[in-house]
């Protein structure tokens, strides 16, 4: 463990600031022999919903320039099976890594139910609330697109769980800083951003969208400048607040340099996502690259760099 990479955030100590993004590392077991998540700052699990979900019809993914589109439909094993079969294994193999469970619901009530059960389970260090989930009772608008929904979900969950709460924000809004503010006021202990951006690819031979559901979420290097800008903007918002919370930067991080962009824009922690599909050990390369950068630049602790791009 490199002391220069040790980070304190959310009232927890992270052995390094590099996490893996929800949906890109499964439940930690699939990649374990190639890339044990115990080396990471934290594992963020695939989104868990109350019921088991079959997911959307295929094709669900397609590569695009410098990224990919996905429309998986939150396929997951469901809360009960997750707690019985996945979480015990994760807890046993976590080592010094933190375990963050990503939760979602299709109504405020379901959000609160899933979060309160998962948040109370042994071995869970924090929850990440996936606000990119559609609200079935409110015309399928994403919870994260509306400040009132954000407040309802976050404050509802906050009242039921003791573990730290990370609100994962969607960039598909007019003013992400306003939604960030709403999440923090409602009790979020940290904000993670960004979720994917809606996109579409048309198969011109078939004259229809390549992905069965039409739209997909864009991720990968293509979204990195959007993510960095959102983090930068939300960091400015945090500085102006009485009780700012740390930011977890996500979007197209494939190397230490990319992680540093997010950190300097204001992120205390980062998540490696789609890059793990390209190279299962991408997160390890980011960790090693950050240690090397600190060494070369005489940085005693990576936290010194948080928000560095804002200082004049």
């Amino acid at each position, binding site marked *: 463990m490199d002391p220069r990479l040790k980070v304190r955030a959310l009232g927890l100590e992270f052995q390094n600031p590099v996490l893996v993004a929800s949906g890109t590392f499964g439940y930690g077991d699939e990649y374990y022999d190639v890339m044990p998540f115990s080396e990471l700052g934290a594992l963020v699990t695939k989104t868990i919903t109350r019921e088991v979900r079959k*997911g959307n019809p*295929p094709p669900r993914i397609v590569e695009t320039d410098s990224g990919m589109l*996905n429309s998986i439909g939150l396929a997951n094993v469901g809360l009960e099976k997750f707690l019985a079969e996945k979480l015990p294994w994760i807890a046993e193999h976590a080592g010094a890594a933190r375990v963050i469970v990503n939760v979602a619901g299709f109504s405020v009530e379901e959000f609160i139910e899933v979060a309160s059960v998962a948040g109370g389970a042994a071995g869970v260090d924090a929850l990440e609330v996936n606000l990119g989930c559609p609200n079935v009772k409110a015309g399928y608008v994403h919870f994260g697109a509306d400040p009132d929904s954000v407040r309802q979900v976050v404050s509802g969950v906050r009242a039921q769980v003791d573990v730290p709460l990370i609100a994962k924000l969607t960039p598909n809004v007019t003013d992400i800083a306003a939604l960030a503010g709403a999440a923090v006021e409602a009790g979020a202990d940290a904000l993670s951003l960004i979720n994917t951006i809606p996109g579409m690819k048309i198969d011109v031979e078939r004259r229809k969208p390549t992905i069965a559901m039409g739209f997909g979420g864009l991720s990968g290097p293509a979204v990195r400048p959007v993510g960095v800008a959102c983090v930068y903007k939300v960091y400015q918002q945090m500085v102006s607040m009485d009780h700012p919370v740390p930011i977890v930067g996500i979007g197209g991080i494939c190397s230490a340099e990319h992680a540093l962009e997010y950190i300097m824009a204001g992120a205390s922690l980062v998540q490696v996502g789609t890059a793990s*599909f*390209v*190279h299962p050990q991408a997160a390890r390369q980011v960790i090693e690259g950050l240690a090397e950068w600190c060494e070369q630049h005489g940085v005693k602790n990576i936290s010194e760099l948080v928000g560095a791009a804002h200082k004049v």
Partner: protein
Amino acid sequence: MKPSFEWVRVKAVERLADKTYLLGYERPDSARSAAPGQFCMISPPEGKSSFFLPRPFSYFRTDGRARVDILFRTFGKATRLMASLRPGERIGEFGPLGNSFTMPGRAEHAILLGGGIGLPPMAMLAGRLAGAGVARIDLIYGELEGARVVKLAATLPENVRLHVATEDGVVGHRGRVTEIFAPMFAKCDRPPAVYACGPNPMMAAVASMITPEAVEFYQASCEQYMACGRGICQGCVIPVWNGDETVYMRCCTEGPVFNGFEVAWTHV
């Protein structure tokens, strides 16, 4: 053998037919353990990637010691880049991945259908079946155009009977592989083991021509857009019947080899 990732050096890239290439490299772990039907994810040379995600390819041939050959067809930017690789360039291989074909238990006759670029796992399987002492092995290989036909005869064990069909009629039977399969299957006096890899309509047609009672099994190797190759992204699913409902199974982990009677061909 657990799958692993390794950078390997390209030994050779050889054009075998129109749009069809052989990529050879050395990777002892894969050469020793890859089973017919398994696949690997190939990443482009670092710094040369005009594409982003690795691409899945079935193993075509291994020498059991070090050498691995992948047979591929140029289709998009990834395969075009692969065709331009030179000996000595470094590519990434993540594998061996997925399940593999089952060797016949009681069947003494195996019928293999390879449609287009579905050929590679069939060719590897034919060799393995011959080595396992299966008495009769028929490999039916089809292409749209004769110009795309890979000359296989010299590389197959002697007792593998190769039948070629092309829709333009330039090589072999003019028509489809199923037109060779139908009379052959009709003449079987005992249930053969049937294997297929190719376009979904071809594999669906085979399923409609046979019944579970008339074969030892029918195994179909399926394909879908894939990102991680390890069951994580849930991207590469195909619908499989579970009673009256379909469930989604991942080609990369539950597959790529499926029971050909269980795949919901009308839904793929």
